[in-house]
């Protein structure tokens, strides 16, 4: 007797359809799984056998062969437990075969027959909704997958539930709790740093990459954290994208679903695979987990050179493609990159009061660890100076509240959405254009740098709700590229 149950398996952030075919025939009692299954899938044999018995189904005393088609695709993980169990049950007539025709099943089994969540439930749900099939999975995931439009979800706590036929579809409606994102750190709580706050505002309004350079303890990390609080909450589509990456990585996607922008701050000992993704099976890295949010790299030069250079291509493209011998996977990685570093090993180069003790060579070597191509991708370089101690002691807020700043950013976003989407270059006023050309020639700016300056100038104009880009916008934008122009 044969039976087939549909399931899906993860490749990148997508779930691909896989057919679980079971053949039960008389002969030596074998339970074999074929079709490029990894160790976790092979272990399904023991879980399925125990689960079936403990909820009172019979495991056939026969030759049971399970094939996972398409066979050339590598199968990872424990999500195959439930479909394998169902295929065996259908092949032995313990569950009616017709009941499983329009169902895609995913879930891990416990030895007691309980159905458990697996990483990537959102990806499986999206795939099932797209294929217009019911998704049968762990009951506990029901609330979370409820955010996927047009999904019919059938949740079960235990395999025992299958004795009464298929459970009813539940359409748990979108559980998006629109809590206003509580900023990790409010800009209003930061004393001083007025020019840096202006830089943060521009970075947040235009999603520009940001490099903070300053002596130790001057507030670089604090400012970077405040950046996340300035960004408007995730849109519905963005929150699903970000939640999908978290789900695939086996992390809790609820914060993303609630509209809170991801903020990821990996330690500088982070490996290349940890930063951009990798491993077997491939897993998204920190950069993808920060998709639609902020990736904060503190102590930038301390990161391994391989890790840093791996960032270059995804910064430009907003997506990471990991190519392996058996195929390529893509993870989204549209991040606002915020990086912080000291100007030199001792940290005081350029400090007006304190003398730097580093040799010129040491300073050059330190800065070279980051490398020109990465500096080139930083839209705003902000020099962070030590704040006057009196300001910190008195704790005097002299800056606009973050609410005000955020509303300016939201207005700028809305304005950018409505203004005529013609080429940015045509919005450059003649004198602004002349200034840019002059500066670019003088500082030997790269093509990319020029484009990025125009984009920053565009954002500054958006903050003023001005369609033309005037000379003051370009001048300010150029000022943030101190790296090139210094």
């Amino acid at each position, binding site marked *: 007797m044969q039976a087939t149950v549909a399931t899906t398996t993860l490749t990148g952030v997508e779930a691909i359809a896989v057919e679980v075919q079971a053949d039960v025939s*008389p*002969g*030596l*009692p074998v*339970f074999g799984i074929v079709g490029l299954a990894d160790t976790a899938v092979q272990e399904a044999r023991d879980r399925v056998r125990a689960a079936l018995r403990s909820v009172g189904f019979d495991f056939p*005393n*026969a030759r049971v062969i399970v094939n996972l088609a398409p066979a050339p695709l590598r199968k990872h993980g424990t999500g195959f437990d439930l479909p394998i169990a169902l295929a065996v049950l259908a092949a032995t007539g313990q569950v009616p075969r017709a009941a499983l025709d329009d169902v895609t099943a995913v879930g891990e089994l416990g030895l007691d027959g309980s159905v458990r969540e697996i990483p990537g439930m959102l990806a499986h749900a999206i795939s099932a909704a797209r294929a217009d099939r019911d998704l049968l999975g762990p009951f506990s995931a029901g609330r979370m997958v409820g955010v996927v439009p047009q999904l019919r979800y059938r949740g079960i706590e235990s395999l025992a539930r299958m004795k009464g036929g298929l459970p009813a579809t539940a359409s748990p409606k979108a559980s998006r709790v629109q809590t206003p994102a509580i900023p990790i750190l409010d800009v209003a709580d930061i004393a001083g740093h007025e020019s840096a706050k202006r830089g943060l505002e521009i970075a947040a309004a235009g999603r520009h990459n940001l490099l903070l350079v300053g002596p130790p303890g001057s507030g670089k990390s604090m400012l970077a954290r405040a950046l996340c609080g300035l960004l408007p909450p995730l849109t519905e589509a963005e929150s699903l994208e970000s939640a999908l990456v978290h789900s695939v990585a086996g992390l809790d996607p609820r914060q993303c679903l609630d509209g809170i922008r991801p903020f990821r701050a990996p330690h500088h000992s982070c490996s290349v695979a940890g930063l951009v993704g990798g491993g077997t099976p491939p897993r998204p890295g920190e950069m993808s987990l920060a998709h639609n949010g902020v990736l904060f790299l503190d102590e930038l030069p301390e990161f391994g050179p391989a890790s840093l250079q791996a960032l270059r291509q995804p910064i430009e493209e907003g997506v990471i493609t990991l190519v392996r011998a058996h195929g390529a996977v893509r993870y989204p990685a549209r991040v606002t990159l915020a990086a912080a570093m000291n100007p030199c090993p001792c940290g005081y180069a350029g400090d007006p009061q304190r003398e730097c003790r580093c040799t010129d060579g040491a300073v050059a070597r330190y800065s070279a660890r980051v490398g020109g191509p990465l500096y080139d991708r930083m839209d705003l370089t902000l020099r962070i100076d030590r704040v006057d101690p009196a300001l910190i002691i008195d704790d005097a807020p002299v800056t606009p509240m973050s609410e005000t700043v955020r509303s300016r950013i939201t207005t700028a976003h809305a304005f950018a959405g409505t203004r005529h989407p013609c080429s940015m270059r045509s919005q450059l006023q003649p004198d602004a254009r002349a200034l840019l050309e002059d500066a670019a020639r003088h500082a030997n700016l790269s093509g990319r740098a020029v484009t990025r300056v125009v984009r920053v100038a565009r954002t500054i104009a958006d903050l003023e709700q001005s369609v033309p880009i005037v000379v003051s916008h370009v001048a300010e934008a150029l000022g943030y590229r101190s790296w090139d122009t210094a």
Partner: protein
Amino acid sequence: MDRSEVGKRGEDAAAAYLERQGLDVVERNWRTERGEIDIIALDGEDLVFCEVKTRTSASRGTGEEAVSQSKRRKLVRMAEIYLSSAGIEPCPVRFDVIAIHVLGPDRALLRHHRAAFVVE
């Protein structure tokens, strides 16, 4: 009583037990050049290959423990030979283990493990 005699009496007891359970013993000590199967029996539709282990003391572990992976593999290979020999219709197959712990001259404990293992 020497070791082979203990084994022989254990197998007799196991065969008698299986008959009492309603099974038809079709072969005893079925031999190939790879070794022998202690008991082959019919349980309704099912063909049962049964390995019997008899222990007089626990010093070498229980009888079940003695059915190691290599022993199981050997049994499976012999079962394949038996099934491919003439006149055997395809049928459900089972591997049982019977462990007998001898307590006294006429007293023993018998444990019957139905479907004790499957082909790996």
